[in-house]
């Protein structure tokens, strides 16, 4: 029951922060696996608090539990914006342990990772329902953004009337196409960046302050 109790506590905490105006907005970083969500979360956390949110990896589903970094103060034009960043597991409709076997993983570990990733997606979807005040949607600009998962998630976010900032990540890659993302979701502003290289982070922070401040 310990887990349940902890969970209940964290949910009540979440609920209490939702209803208090002074508390920082809780911003969920969502997107498909391997879009660079954790790299971005770490970049933001390191830039403004000095430490990281969690480990990054090329292996999909490295983040299998939502991780939070609280009270990240971002300064823009002399104004301070305080947010809580929630780095969520990559959302997908299929998780298969055999995918991890290619990354030199034993079967037992791969199966466990797969199970945890699935639980992580369930958690991320649940958080989206109740526990976030805004969304940073991270897409890998080197891949096709027209997917069922992206369309469905952005649709859900819109139906919740949550402010959403779409980030076209990985612009350092040759195959990157920011325009493809702009075309896919023209109703939202798309900001290009490379979270890994730190490219265009100034504009990202400007927009975070504008959207979630």
């Amino acid at each position, binding site marked *: 029951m310990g887990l349940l109790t902890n969970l209940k506590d964290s949910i009540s905490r979440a609920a209490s922060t939702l209803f208090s105006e002074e508390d920082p907005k809780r911003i969920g970083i969502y997107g498909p696996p391997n879009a660079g969500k954790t790299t971005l979360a770490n970049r933001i956390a390191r830039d403004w608090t000095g430490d990281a949110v969690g480990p990054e990896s090329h292996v999909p589903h490295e983040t299998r539990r939502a991780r939070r970094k609280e009270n990240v103060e971002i300064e823009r034009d002399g104004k301070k914006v305080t947010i809580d960043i929630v780095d969520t597991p990559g*959302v997908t409709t*299929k998780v298969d342990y055999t995918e991890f076997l290619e990354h030199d993983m034993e079967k037992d570990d791969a199966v466990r990772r797969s*199970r945890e990733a699935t639980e992580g997606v369930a958690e991320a979807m*649940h958080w989206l329902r109740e526990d976030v005040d805004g969304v940073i949607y991270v897409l890998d600009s080197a891949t096709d953004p027209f997917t069922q998962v992206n369309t*469905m998630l952005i649709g859900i976010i819109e139906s919740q009337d949550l402010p959403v900032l779409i980030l076209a990540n990985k612009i350092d890659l040759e195959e990157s196409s920011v325009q493809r993302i702009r075309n896919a979701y023209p*109703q939202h502003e798309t900001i290009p960046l490379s979270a890994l290289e730190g490219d265009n982070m100034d504009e990202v922070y400007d927009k975070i302050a504008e959207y979630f401040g």
Partner: protein
Amino acid sequence: MPHQCTDCGRGFDDGSKEMLSGCPNCGGNKFQYQPEGADISETPDAEPPEPPGPDSTVARTVGKTAASVRDFVSGSAPDGDRPAEQSHLDADRSADSQPSDPSHTSGSPSTEPDRTSAAEDSAQASARGDIVEPDELPSDAPSASESEHQFRPVGADPDPPAEPEQEDRPDLEELRAELNDQFESIKVLEPGQYELNLMELYDREEYIIALQEDGHYSIQVPETIRSE
């Protein structure tokens, strides 16, 4: 031109049958729906489609997904009490149209009221009313790629009344089974292999916090239930 090929940008009338066998220009099979009044530039090349309006495809797609799932669920188990013909009509309808025949509506409780609002143009009317003539389809219609997608060849089922999507519909049983499966929040194919229904996970009150190998879930019970 409410539909536009996402590959070459060619536009199509609402409900146009031309799209059923892929874009005649480039063979593409992804089409973006452009709501009325959206400005589309018909570009010949790889230039991507113009934006739809703010009320656009996303919400529509989510709604459609939910509606399809609902239709199939209300259509019950694979051998349920609804005639097969009726069920696949609903499935087809959920994609784009409203019932034209009152006898269909009586059997489909999930018909959405808002589907009936849009004015239909001639392409829609034609798509709903006529059977596609064999010569309207490209001569190489049952190509290899189509049979991969399990489309039926034209005229495979001449018996039932005229229904537009008939000749190109995916295999019904398979589609139904897939949607029934998707209705579950998380389907355990085998330990380590899972399929997730995101809408279900999002919609459900309970929160799945742990999966067990035997297919059981641990859930967090909503406060309202727990206190009783």
